[in-house]
Protein backbone atom coordinates (compact mmCIF):
# COMPACT_ATOMS: atom_id res chain seq x y z
CA UNK A 1 0.00 0.00 0.00
CA UNK A 2 1.22 3.45 -0.81
CA UNK A 3 -0.72 6.60 -0.03
CA UNK A 4 0.29 9.98 -1.37
CA UNK A 5 -1.45 12.59 0.73
CA UNK A 6 -1.39 16.28 -0.07
CA UNK A 7 -2.57 19.10 2.18
CA UNK A 8 -3.10 22.60 0.81
CA UNK A 9 -4.30 25.75 2.50
CA UNK A 10 -3.17 29.01 3.98
CA UNK A 11 -0.35 29.61 6.44
CA UNK A 12 -1.86 29.78 9.93
CA UNK A 13 -4.59 27.20 9.36
CA UNK A 14 -2.46 24.43 10.80
CA UNK A 15 -1.90 22.73 7.46
CA UNK A 16 1.66 21.63 8.19
CA UNK A 17 0.85 20.70 11.78
CA UNK A 18 -1.94 18.39 10.71
CA UNK A 19 0.34 16.73 8.18
CA UNK A 20 2.96 16.12 10.86
CA UNK A 21 0.35 14.62 13.17
CA UNK A 22 -0.86 12.33 10.42
CA UNK A 23 2.72 11.28 9.60
CA UNK A 24 3.38 10.49 13.25
CA UNK A 25 0.15 8.54 13.63
CA UNK A 26 0.96 6.41 10.60
CA UNK A 27 4.68 6.18 11.28
CA UNK A 28 4.81 5.57 15.00
CA UNK A 29 1.27 4.39 15.73
CA UNK A 30 0.79 2.07 12.77
CA UNK A 31 4.50 1.44 12.16
CA UNK A 32 4.39 2.27 8.46
CA UNK A 33 7.12 4.07 6.57
CA UNK A 34 6.37 7.77 6.24
CA UNK A 35 7.94 10.80 4.66
CA UNK A 36 6.58 14.25 5.31
CA UNK A 37 7.64 17.26 3.30
CA UNK A 38 6.28 20.75 3.18
CA UNK A 39 6.52 23.87 1.11
CA UNK A 40 9.13 26.01 2.73
CA UNK A 41 9.33 29.72 2.19
CA UNK A 42 7.06 32.66 2.88
CA UNK A 43 4.53 30.52 4.73
CA UNK A 44 3.54 33.40 6.96
CA UNK A 45 -0.06 33.71 8.00
CA UNK A 46 -2.24 33.94 4.91
CA UNK A 47 0.29 32.80 2.30
CA UNK A 48 -0.21 29.66 0.25
CA UNK A 49 0.96 26.57 2.05
CA UNK A 50 1.36 22.93 1.11
CA UNK A 51 2.37 19.78 2.93
CA UNK A 52 2.78 16.26 1.65
CA UNK A 53 2.84 12.91 3.40
CA UNK A 54 3.82 9.64 1.78
CA UNK A 55 2.73 6.52 3.65
CA UNK A 56 3.92 3.13 2.54
CA UNK A 57 4.59 -0.37 3.78
CA UNK A 58 7.56 -0.50 1.41
CA UNK A 59 10.68 1.63 1.49
CA UNK A 60 9.93 5.14 0.32
CA UNK A 61 12.53 5.92 -2.29
CA UNK A 62 11.11 8.99 -3.95
CA UNK A 63 10.09 11.36 -1.18
CA UNK A 64 7.91 13.75 -3.13
CA UNK A 65 4.46 13.27 -4.59
CA UNK A 66 3.76 13.04 -8.29
CA UNK A 67 0.50 11.13 -8.13
CA UNK A 68 -1.97 12.22 -5.47
CA UNK A 69 -4.26 9.69 -3.77
CA UNK A 70 -5.66 11.84 -1.01
CA UNK A 71 -6.10 15.60 -1.20
CA UNK A 72 -7.13 17.85 1.65
CA UNK A 73 -8.01 21.46 0.84
CA UNK A 74 -8.27 23.96 3.67
CA UNK A 75 -9.14 26.95 1.50
CA UNK A 76 -10.16 27.93 -2.01
CA UNK A 77 -6.70 29.03 -3.13
CA UNK A 78 -5.21 25.70 -2.15
CA UNK A 79 -8.02 23.79 -3.83
CA UNK A 80 -7.78 25.75 -7.07
CA UNK A 81 -4.03 25.37 -7.21
CA UNK A 82 -3.97 21.58 -7.06
CA UNK A 83 -7.44 20.41 -8.17
CA UNK A 84 -6.22 19.86 -11.72
CA UNK A 85 -4.01 17.01 -10.53
CA UNK A 86 -6.98 15.05 -9.21
CA UNK A 87 -8.36 11.88 -10.70
CA UNK A 88 -11.73 10.30 -10.08
CA UNK A 89 -10.34 7.63 -7.77
CA UNK A 90 -8.77 10.15 -5.45
CA UNK A 91 -10.13 10.79 -2.01
CA UNK A 92 -10.75 14.50 -1.57
CA UNK A 93 -11.70 16.20 1.67
CA UNK A 94 -12.47 19.89 1.62
CA UNK A 95 -13.13 22.49 4.24
CA UNK A 96 -16.55 23.34 2.84
CA UNK A 97 -16.85 26.57 4.83
CA UNK A 98 -14.12 28.07 2.68
CA UNK A 99 -14.03 25.94 -0.45
CA UNK A 100 -16.75 26.01 -3.07
CA UNK A 101 -16.94 23.26 -5.66
CA UNK A 102 -19.59 21.42 -7.60
CA UNK A 103 -17.88 18.06 -7.44
CA UNK A 104 -20.19 15.70 -5.57
CA UNK A 105 -17.48 13.06 -5.06
CA UNK A 106 -15.63 15.23 -2.58
CA UNK A 107 -16.09 14.82 1.13
CA UNK A 108 -17.25 18.15 2.47
CA UNK A 109 -16.51 19.07 6.08
CA UNK A 110 -17.51 22.55 7.30
CA UNK A 111 -14.40 22.57 9.47
CA UNK A 112 -14.09 26.31 10.02
CA UNK A 113 -17.76 26.52 10.97
CA UNK A 114 -17.49 23.59 13.39
CA UNK A 115 -14.36 25.02 14.98
CA UNK A 116 -15.90 28.46 15.35
CA UNK A 117 -19.06 27.01 16.86
CA UNK A 118 -16.89 25.29 19.42
CA UNK A 119 -15.30 28.62 20.24
CA UNK A 120 -11.96 27.21 19.15
CA UNK A 121 -11.27 28.71 15.70
CA UNK A 122 -7.65 27.58 15.81
CA UNK A 123 -8.69 23.94 15.77
CA UNK A 124 -9.79 23.86 12.12
CA UNK A 125 -6.97 21.47 11.37
CA UNK A 126 -8.07 19.15 14.16
CA UNK A 127 -11.59 18.94 12.74
CA UNK A 128 -10.15 18.17 9.32
CA UNK A 129 -7.79 15.59 10.77
CA UNK A 130 -10.70 13.93 12.57
CA UNK A 131 -12.70 13.64 9.38
CA UNK A 132 -9.64 12.39 7.52
CA UNK A 133 -8.89 9.75 10.14
CA UNK A 134 -12.34 8.30 9.62
CA UNK A 135 -11.76 8.05 5.89
CA UNK A 136 -8.18 6.82 5.62
CA UNK A 137 -7.36 3.12 5.50
CA UNK A 138 -5.20 1.33 8.07
CA UNK A 139 -5.36 4.18 10.54
CA UNK A 140 -6.84 3.68 13.97
CA UNK A 141 -8.65 6.40 15.86
CA UNK A 142 -6.70 5.77 19.05
CA UNK A 143 -3.32 6.10 17.37
CA UNK A 144 -4.09 9.62 16.22
CA UNK A 145 -5.41 10.53 19.66
CA UNK A 146 -2.15 9.28 21.19
CA UNK A 147 -0.14 11.50 18.89
CA UNK A 148 -2.29 14.54 19.65
CA UNK A 149 -1.82 13.93 23.36
CA UNK A 150 1.90 13.72 22.95
CA UNK A 151 2.29 16.58 20.53
CA UNK A 152 0.40 19.34 22.27
CA UNK A 153 0.72 21.18 25.52
CA UNK A 154 -1.59 19.88 28.26
CA UNK A 155 -3.53 23.12 28.22
CA UNK A 156 -4.79 22.64 24.67
CA UNK A 157 -4.92 18.86 24.37
CA UNK A 158 -8.51 18.70 25.56
CA UNK A 159 -9.78 21.30 23.12
CA UNK A 160 -7.94 19.69 20.26
CA UNK A 161 -9.24 16.21 20.99
CA UNK A 162 -12.75 17.63 21.22
CA UNK A 163 -12.36 19.25 17.81
CA UNK A 164 -10.85 16.06 16.42
CA UNK A 165 -13.83 14.07 17.72
CA UNK A 166 -16.24 16.53 16.12
CA UNK A 167 -14.65 16.00 12.76
CA UNK A 168 -14.53 12.25 13.23
CA UNK A 169 -18.16 11.95 14.27
CA UNK A 170 -19.27 14.35 11.54
CA UNK A 171 -17.86 11.97 9.01
CA UNK A 172 -19.31 8.98 10.83
CA UNK A 173 -22.80 10.49 10.70
CA UNK A 174 -22.38 11.38 7.06
CA UNK A 175 -21.48 7.82 6.31
CA UNK A 176 -24.36 6.42 8.29
CA UNK A 177 -26.69 8.70 6.35
CA UNK A 178 -25.35 7.76 2.98
CA UNK A 179 -25.03 4.15 3.94
CA UNK A 180 -21.97 3.60 1.81
CA UNK A 181 -18.50 3.37 3.20
CA UNK A 182 -15.79 5.18 1.27
CA UNK A 183 -14.10 3.09 -1.34
CA UNK A 184 -10.97 1.56 0.02
CA UNK A 185 -7.80 2.62 -1.75
Amino acid at each position, binding site marked *: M*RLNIRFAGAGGQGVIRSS*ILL*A*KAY*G*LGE*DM*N*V*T*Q*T*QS*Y*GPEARGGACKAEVVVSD*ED*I*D*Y*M*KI*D*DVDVFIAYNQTGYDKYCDDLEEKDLVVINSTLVETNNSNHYKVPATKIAEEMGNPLAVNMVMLGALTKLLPNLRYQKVIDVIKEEFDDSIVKGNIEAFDRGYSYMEEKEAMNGEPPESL
Partner: protein
Amino acid sequence: MPYARYGRKVILQGNEACAKAAVYAGCKFFAGYPITPSTEIVELMCSEMLNSGGTFIQMEDEIASACSIIGARWGGKKAMTATSGPGFTLMQEAIGFAAVTETPMVIVNVQRGGPSTGQPTKSSQQDIYQAKYGSHGDYEIIALAPASVQEMYDFTIRAFELSEKFRTPVVILADEIVGHMREKLIVYSGEKRIRAGYRHYVLSPQDDFFTGNNTLVEGQLHDSEGKRVGHLPNRSAYYVNSINRKITRHIDEIEDIETFYMADADIAIIAYGSVSRPSLKAVKTARGINVEAERRMRLLNRMIGRKIDKNPYSHLNIGLIKINTVWPFPEKRLKHLAEKCKYIFVPEMNIGKYFREIERCLKESRVISLPKLGGDIHTPDEILMAIVREVGNSE
Protein backbone atom coordinates in the same frame (compact mmCIF):
# COMPACT_ATOMS: atom_id res chain seq x y z
CA MET B 1 26.07 1.66 7.86
CA PRO B 2 27.73 -0.17 10.70
CA TYR B 3 25.37 1.01 13.41
CA ALA B 4 23.06 -1.51 15.02
CA ARG B 5 19.39 -0.89 14.50
CA TYR B 6 18.23 -0.64 18.07
CA GLY B 7 16.95 2.29 19.97
CA ARG B 8 13.83 4.40 19.96
CA LYS B 9 11.71 5.10 16.91
CA VAL B 10 10.89 8.74 16.42
CA ILE B 11 9.82 11.02 13.61
CA LEU B 12 12.11 13.97 13.15
CA GLN B 13 13.25 16.43 10.54
CA GLY B 14 16.66 15.80 9.05
CA ASN B 15 18.03 18.88 10.77
CA GLU B 16 16.66 17.80 14.13
CA ALA B 17 18.11 14.33 13.65
CA CYS B 18 21.50 15.89 12.98
CA ALA B 19 21.39 17.80 16.26
CA LYS B 20 20.30 14.71 18.20
CA ALA B 21 23.12 12.71 16.64
CA ALA B 22 25.68 15.33 17.56
CA VAL B 23 24.64 15.12 21.20
CA TYR B 24 24.81 11.32 21.05
CA ALA B 25 28.28 11.55 19.52
CA GLY B 26 29.45 13.58 22.47
CA CYS B 27 29.38 17.09 21.02
CA LYS B 28 29.82 19.50 23.89
CA PHE B 29 30.23 22.76 22.05
CA PHE B 30 28.13 24.27 19.32
CA ALA B 31 28.65 27.67 17.80
CA GLY B 32 26.56 28.82 14.89
CA TYR B 33 24.77 31.58 13.10
CA PRO B 34 21.28 30.59 12.00
CA ILE B 35 20.79 30.44 8.25
CA THR B 36 18.03 28.93 6.13
CA PRO B 37 17.77 25.98 5.58
CA SER B 38 19.91 24.82 8.52
CA THR B 39 18.26 26.93 11.21
CA GLU B 40 16.59 23.99 12.94
CA ILE B 41 20.00 22.53 13.80
CA VAL B 42 21.04 25.73 15.53
CA GLU B 43 17.65 26.01 17.20
CA LEU B 44 17.64 22.51 18.58
CA MET B 45 21.33 22.56 19.54
CA CYS B 46 20.56 25.54 21.74
CA SER B 47 18.30 23.49 24.00
CA GLU B 48 20.19 20.22 23.57
CA MET B 49 23.49 21.77 24.68
CA LEU B 50 21.76 23.23 27.69
CA ASN B 51 20.30 19.84 28.63
CA SER B 52 23.48 17.85 28.09
CA GLY B 53 25.87 20.14 29.88
CA GLY B 54 27.45 21.56 26.77
CA THR B 55 27.92 25.11 25.53
CA PHE B 56 25.92 26.85 22.87
CA ILE B 57 26.92 30.22 21.46
CA GLN B 58 25.13 32.15 18.75
CA MET B 59 28.05 33.87 17.10
CA GLU B 60 28.15 37.15 15.22
CA ASP B 61 28.83 35.37 11.92
CA GLU B 62 30.02 32.14 10.37
CA ILE B 63 33.69 33.10 10.44
CA ALA B 64 33.52 33.33 14.20
CA SER B 65 31.44 30.15 14.42
CA ALA B 66 34.02 28.07 12.60
CA CYS B 67 36.96 29.64 14.45
CA SER B 68 35.38 29.13 17.83
CA ILE B 69 34.78 25.43 17.30
CA ILE B 70 38.46 25.01 16.50
CA GLY B 71 39.22 26.72 19.79
CA ALA B 72 36.70 24.60 21.61
CA ARG B 73 38.19 21.40 20.24
CA TRP B 74 41.66 22.37 21.38
CA GLY B 75 40.05 23.17 24.69
CA GLY B 76 39.05 19.52 24.88
CA LYS B 77 35.43 19.54 23.71
CA LYS B 78 34.03 17.87 20.62
CA ALA B 79 32.51 20.65 18.56
CA MET B 80 30.22 21.24 15.62
CA THR B 81 28.75 24.06 13.59
CA ALA B 82 25.98 24.15 11.01
CA THR B 83 25.36 26.44 8.11
CA SER B 84 24.35 26.73 4.48
CA GLY B 85 26.12 27.94 1.32
CA PRO B 86 26.81 31.61 2.13
CA GLY B 87 27.98 30.71 5.64
CA PHE B 88 30.06 27.83 4.34
CA THR B 89 31.89 30.30 2.11
CA LEU B 90 32.79 32.39 5.13
CA MET B 91 34.03 29.33 7.00
CA GLN B 92 36.61 28.36 4.40
CA GLU B 93 39.49 30.16 6.07
CA ALA B 94 38.86 28.33 9.32
CA ILE B 95 38.54 25.01 7.50
CA GLY B 96 42.04 25.51 6.08
CA PHE B 97 43.32 26.34 9.52
CA ALA B 98 41.68 23.24 10.97
CA ALA B 99 43.23 21.14 8.20
CA VAL B 100 46.74 22.42 8.84
CA THR B 101 46.46 22.28 12.62
CA GLU B 102 44.82 18.85 12.32
CA THR B 103 41.83 19.85 14.38
CA PRO B 104 38.80 17.57 14.40
CA MET B 105 35.65 19.53 13.61
CA VAL B 106 32.26 18.74 12.12
CA ILE B 107 30.63 21.22 9.76
CA VAL B 108 27.11 20.62 8.55
CA ASN B 109 26.33 22.33 5.26
CA VAL B 110 22.64 22.08 4.47
CA GLN B 111 22.98 23.15 0.87
CA ARG B 112 20.70 25.68 -0.76
CA GLY B 113 20.73 27.18 -4.24
CA GLY B 114 23.59 29.54 -5.03
CA PRO B 115 25.63 31.49 -5.93
CA SER B 116 25.59 34.06 -3.13
CA THR B 117 22.24 34.47 -1.39
CA GLY B 118 20.77 32.45 -4.24
CA GLN B 119 17.71 30.42 -3.36
CA PRO B 120 17.49 30.27 0.42
CA THR B 121 14.48 27.96 0.58
CA LYS B 122 15.41 25.63 -2.25
CA SER B 123 17.67 22.64 -2.47
CA SER B 124 20.90 22.12 -4.41
CA GLN B 125 24.14 20.18 -4.49
CA GLN B 126 26.18 23.07 -5.79
CA ASP B 127 28.71 23.10 -2.94
CA ILE B 128 30.19 19.73 -3.80
CA TYR B 129 33.49 21.17 -5.03
CA GLN B 130 33.62 23.90 -2.43
CA ALA B 131 33.58 21.26 0.27
CA LYS B 132 36.84 19.87 -1.08
CA TYR B 133 38.56 22.83 -2.68
CA GLY B 134 37.12 25.74 -0.72
CA SER B 135 40.19 26.77 1.24
CA HIS B 136 43.58 27.51 -0.25
CA GLY B 137 46.51 25.16 -0.24
CA ASP B 138 46.77 21.40 -0.53
CA TYR B 139 44.67 19.53 1.95
CA GLU B 140 42.25 16.63 1.90
CA ILE B 141 38.87 16.62 3.50
CA ILE B 142 36.19 14.08 4.29
CA ALA B 143 32.64 14.85 3.16
CA LEU B 144 29.54 12.73 3.72
CA ALA B 145 26.29 13.09 1.77
CA PRO B 146 23.16 11.84 3.57
CA ALA B 147 19.99 10.99 1.63
CA SER B 148 17.52 10.28 4.40
CA VAL B 149 16.79 11.38 7.92
CA GLN B 150 18.27 8.15 9.30
CA GLU B 151 21.42 8.80 7.30
CA MET B 152 21.53 12.37 8.54
CA TYR B 153 21.62 10.86 12.03
CA ASP B 154 24.08 8.06 11.31
CA PHE B 155 26.43 10.17 9.21
CA THR B 156 26.63 12.86 11.86
CA ILE B 157 27.82 10.26 14.34
CA ARG B 158 30.25 8.89 11.78
CA ALA B 159 31.48 12.41 11.03
CA PHE B 160 32.54 12.81 14.65
CA GLU B 161 34.25 9.42 14.60
CA LEU B 162 36.14 10.15 11.40
CA SER B 163 37.12 13.64 12.44
CA GLU B 164 38.58 12.33 15.70
CA LYS B 165 40.34 9.42 14.08
CA PHE B 166 41.94 11.35 11.23
CA ARG B 167 42.03 14.67 13.06
CA THR B 168 40.54 16.54 10.19
CA PRO B 169 37.52 18.69 9.42
CA VAL B 170 34.58 16.58 8.24
CA VAL B 171 31.79 18.15 6.21
CA ILE B 172 28.26 16.82 6.13
CA LEU B 173 26.89 17.83 2.74
CA ALA B 174 23.17 17.65 3.32
CA ASP B 175 20.63 19.62 1.35
CA GLU B 176 17.36 21.42 1.96
CA ILE B 177 15.28 18.37 1.08
CA VAL B 178 16.99 16.06 3.56
CA GLY B 179 17.16 18.83 6.15
CA HIS B 180 13.45 19.59 6.12
CA MET B 181 12.02 16.18 5.43
CA ARG B 182 10.42 14.30 8.29
CA GLU B 183 10.90 10.55 8.45
CA LYS B 184 10.90 7.76 10.92
CA LEU B 185 14.30 6.97 12.33
CA ILE B 186 15.94 5.15 15.17
CA VAL B 187 17.76 7.22 17.75
CA TYR B 188 20.01 5.90 20.46
CA SER B 189 20.06 6.94 24.06
CA GLY B 190 23.02 7.86 26.18
CA GLU B 191 26.32 8.92 24.74
CA LYS B 192 28.56 7.12 22.30
CA ARG B 193 32.14 6.70 23.32
CA ILE B 194 34.27 8.05 20.52
CA ARG B 195 37.94 7.74 21.12
CA ALA B 196 39.86 10.96 20.77
CA GLY B 197 43.59 11.44 20.36
CA TYR B 198 44.48 8.79 17.80
CA ARG B 199 48.19 8.98 17.16
CA HIS B 200 48.58 6.84 14.06
CA TYR B 201 47.98 9.22 11.23
CA VAL B 202 48.79 12.57 12.67
CA LEU B 203 51.87 14.72 12.71
CA SER B 204 50.81 17.70 14.78
CA PRO B 205 50.69 17.69 18.55
CA GLN B 206 47.41 16.26 19.69
CA ASP B 207 47.00 17.02 23.34
CA ASP B 208 44.08 19.10 24.30
CA PHE B 209 44.99 22.22 26.21
CA PHE B 210 43.39 20.94 29.36
CA THR B 211 45.29 17.67 29.63
CA GLY B 212 48.28 19.32 31.27
CA ASN B 213 50.72 19.56 28.39
CA ASN B 214 52.17 22.51 26.60
CA THR B 215 50.74 22.49 23.10
CA LEU B 216 51.62 24.65 20.16
CA VAL B 217 48.77 25.09 17.69
CA GLU B 218 50.42 26.46 14.62
CA GLY B 219 48.95 27.58 11.30
CA GLN B 220 52.32 27.47 9.60
CA LEU B 221 53.61 24.11 8.52
CA HIS B 222 55.09 22.52 11.61
CA ASP B 223 56.59 19.41 13.12
CA SER B 224 55.28 17.03 15.75
CA GLU B 225 55.99 19.52 18.49
CA GLY B 226 54.20 22.28 16.68
CA LYS B 227 57.41 24.13 15.79
CA ARG B 228 57.52 25.92 12.44
CA VAL B 229 59.19 24.21 9.51
CA GLY B 230 57.98 26.59 6.77
CA HIS B 231 61.53 27.62 5.91
CA LEU B 232 62.65 24.03 5.35
CA PRO B 233 61.55 22.74 1.93
CA ASN B 234 61.89 19.03 2.72
CA ARG B 235 60.13 19.14 6.04
CA SER B 236 57.41 21.37 4.59
CA ALA B 237 56.77 19.02 1.71
CA TYR B 238 56.67 16.13 4.14
CA TYR B 239 54.10 17.90 6.25
CA VAL B 240 51.75 18.71 3.36
CA ASN B 241 52.10 15.17 2.09
CA SER B 242 51.32 13.86 5.50
CA ILE B 243 48.04 15.73 6.02
CA ASN B 244 46.89 14.60 2.56
CA ARG B 245 48.05 11.02 2.83
CA LYS B 246 46.48 10.36 6.18
CA ILE B 247 43.18 10.52 4.27
CA THR B 248 44.03 9.26 0.77
CA ARG B 249 45.90 6.23 2.12
CA HIS B 250 43.01 5.21 4.34
CA ILE B 251 40.32 5.59 1.74
CA ASP B 252 39.35 1.93 2.18
CA GLU B 253 38.50 2.64 5.75
CA ILE B 254 36.67 5.89 5.05
CA GLU B 255 34.75 5.11 1.87
CA ASP B 256 31.13 4.10 2.05
CA ILE B 257 29.41 3.11 -1.18
CA GLU B 258 26.10 1.32 -1.46
CA THR B 259 25.08 -0.58 -4.56
CA PHE B 260 21.60 -1.56 -5.67
CA TYR B 261 20.90 -4.13 -8.40
CA MET B 262 24.42 -3.81 -9.80
CA ALA B 263 25.09 -7.54 -10.20
CA ASP B 264 23.94 -7.75 -13.83
CA ALA B 265 23.71 -4.06 -14.65
CA ASP B 266 25.22 -2.59 -17.78
CA ILE B 267 23.79 0.84 -17.10
CA ALA B 268 24.59 2.51 -13.80
CA ILE B 269 23.25 5.60 -12.14
CA ILE B 270 25.84 7.11 -9.83
CA ALA B 271 24.28 9.47 -7.33
CA TYR B 272 24.90 10.97 -3.92
CA GLY B 273 22.70 12.69 -1.39
CA SER B 274 18.98 13.11 -1.86
CA VAL B 275 19.11 12.59 -5.63
CA SER B 276 19.98 8.94 -5.02
CA ARG B 277 16.41 8.37 -3.89
CA PRO B 278 14.53 9.20 -7.09
CA SER B 279 17.40 7.35 -8.81
CA LEU B 280 16.66 4.21 -6.83
CA LYS B 281 12.99 4.59 -7.65
CA ALA B 282 13.92 4.83 -11.33
CA VAL B 283 16.01 1.66 -11.08
CA LYS B 284 13.21 -0.24 -9.35
CA THR B 285 10.69 0.96 -11.91
CA ALA B 286 12.83 -0.18 -14.82
CA ARG B 287 13.22 -3.57 -13.21
CA GLY B 288 9.53 -3.75 -12.30
CA ILE B 289 10.49 -4.47 -8.75
CA ASN B 290 7.55 -3.48 -6.64
CA VAL B 291 3.92 -2.64 -6.88
CA GLU B 292 4.95 0.93 -7.32
CA ALA B 293 5.87 0.08 -10.89
CA GLU B 294 2.19 -0.28 -11.68
CA ARG B 295 1.50 3.18 -10.45
CA ARG B 296 4.31 4.53 -12.61
CA MET B 297 2.83 2.79 -15.62
CA ARG B 298 -0.51 4.42 -15.01
CA LEU B 299 1.16 7.77 -14.67
CA LEU B 300 3.05 7.23 -17.88
CA ASN B 301 -0.11 6.20 -19.71
CA ARG B 302 -1.74 9.39 -18.61
CA MET B 303 1.20 11.48 -19.69
CA ILE B 304 1.40 10.13 -23.22
CA GLY B 305 -2.35 9.70 -23.54
CA ARG B 306 -2.37 6.08 -24.69
CA LYS B 307 -2.06 2.79 -23.00
CA ILE B 308 1.14 0.80 -22.83
CA ASP B 309 0.88 -2.65 -21.30
CA LYS B 310 4.50 -3.56 -21.20
CA ASN B 311 7.01 -1.90 -18.95
CA PRO B 312 8.73 0.38 -21.46
CA TYR B 313 11.96 0.25 -19.50
CA SER B 314 12.31 -3.51 -19.18
CA HIS B 315 15.18 -3.57 -21.68
CA LEU B 316 17.29 -1.43 -19.37
CA ASN B 317 19.52 -3.29 -16.96
CA ILE B 318 20.01 -0.44 -14.57
CA GLY B 319 21.70 -0.42 -11.21
CA LEU B 320 22.47 2.31 -8.73
CA ILE B 321 25.76 3.19 -7.10
CA LYS B 322 25.14 5.50 -4.16
CA ILE B 323 28.21 7.30 -2.89
CA ASN B 324 27.91 8.25 0.76
CA THR B 325 31.45 9.53 1.22
CA VAL B 326 31.75 11.96 -1.68
CA TRP B 327 35.21 13.10 -0.57
CA PRO B 328 37.78 11.60 -0.66
CA PHE B 329 36.69 10.43 -4.10
CA PRO B 330 36.42 6.62 -4.00
CA GLU B 331 38.13 6.15 -7.33
CA LYS B 332 39.43 2.60 -7.03
CA ARG B 333 36.24 1.11 -5.70
CA LEU B 334 34.13 2.96 -8.26
CA LYS B 335 36.30 1.64 -11.09
CA HIS B 336 35.78 -1.86 -9.82
CA LEU B 337 32.02 -1.51 -9.37
CA ALA B 338 31.31 0.14 -12.70
CA GLU B 339 33.75 -1.77 -14.89
CA LYS B 340 31.00 -3.67 -16.73
CA CYS B 341 28.82 -0.63 -17.32
CA LYS B 342 28.61 0.82 -20.79
CA TYR B 343 26.61 3.81 -19.70
CA ILE B 344 26.93 5.84 -16.54
CA PHE B 345 24.39 8.51 -15.63
CA VAL B 346 25.13 11.10 -13.00
CA PRO B 347 22.07 13.04 -11.85
CA GLU B 348 22.92 16.04 -9.69
CA MET B 349 21.13 19.12 -8.43
CA ASN B 350 23.80 21.39 -9.88
CA ILE B 351 25.21 22.27 -13.27
CA GLY B 352 27.04 18.94 -13.51
CA LYS B 353 30.07 18.95 -11.25
CA TYR B 354 30.73 15.60 -9.63
CA PHE B 355 30.13 14.12 -13.07
CA ARG B 356 33.57 15.39 -14.07
CA GLU B 357 35.24 13.37 -11.34
CA ILE B 358 33.38 10.29 -12.45
CA GLU B 359 34.14 10.86 -16.11
CA ARG B 360 37.81 11.18 -15.28
CA CYS B 361 37.71 7.97 -13.31
CA LEU B 362 35.60 5.78 -15.63
CA LYS B 363 37.25 6.26 -19.00
CA GLU B 364 35.88 3.05 -20.52
CA SER B 365 32.24 3.96 -20.05
CA ARG B 366 30.14 6.66 -21.59
CA VAL B 367 29.46 9.05 -18.71
CA ILE B 368 26.44 11.31 -19.08
CA SER B 369 25.61 14.18 -16.80
CA LEU B 370 21.99 14.78 -15.79
CA PRO B 371 22.12 18.18 -14.14
CA LYS B 372 19.11 19.92 -12.70
CA LEU B 373 19.06 23.50 -11.56
CA GLY B 374 16.27 25.55 -10.05
CA GLY B 375 15.92 23.96 -6.65
CA ASP B 376 13.74 20.94 -7.35
CA ILE B 377 14.90 17.36 -7.15
CA HIS B 378 14.86 15.07 -10.20
CA THR B 379 11.75 12.95 -10.58
CA PRO B 380 12.22 9.22 -11.30
CA ASP B 381 10.56 9.75 -14.69
CA GLU B 382 12.98 12.47 -15.69
CA ILE B 383 15.88 10.17 -14.94
CA LEU B 384 14.35 7.24 -16.82
CA MET B 385 13.46 9.33 -19.84
CA ALA B 386 16.96 10.75 -20.00
CA ILE B 387 18.32 7.21 -19.96
CA VAL B 388 15.97 6.08 -22.72
CA ARG B 389 16.92 9.12 -24.80
CA GLU B 390 20.53 8.05 -24.60
CA VAL B 391 20.28 4.26 -24.70
CA GLY B 392 17.27 4.02 -27.00
CA ASN B 393 13.88 2.35 -26.80
CA SER B 394 13.41 -1.37 -26.72
CA GLU B 395 13.07 -3.00 -30.11
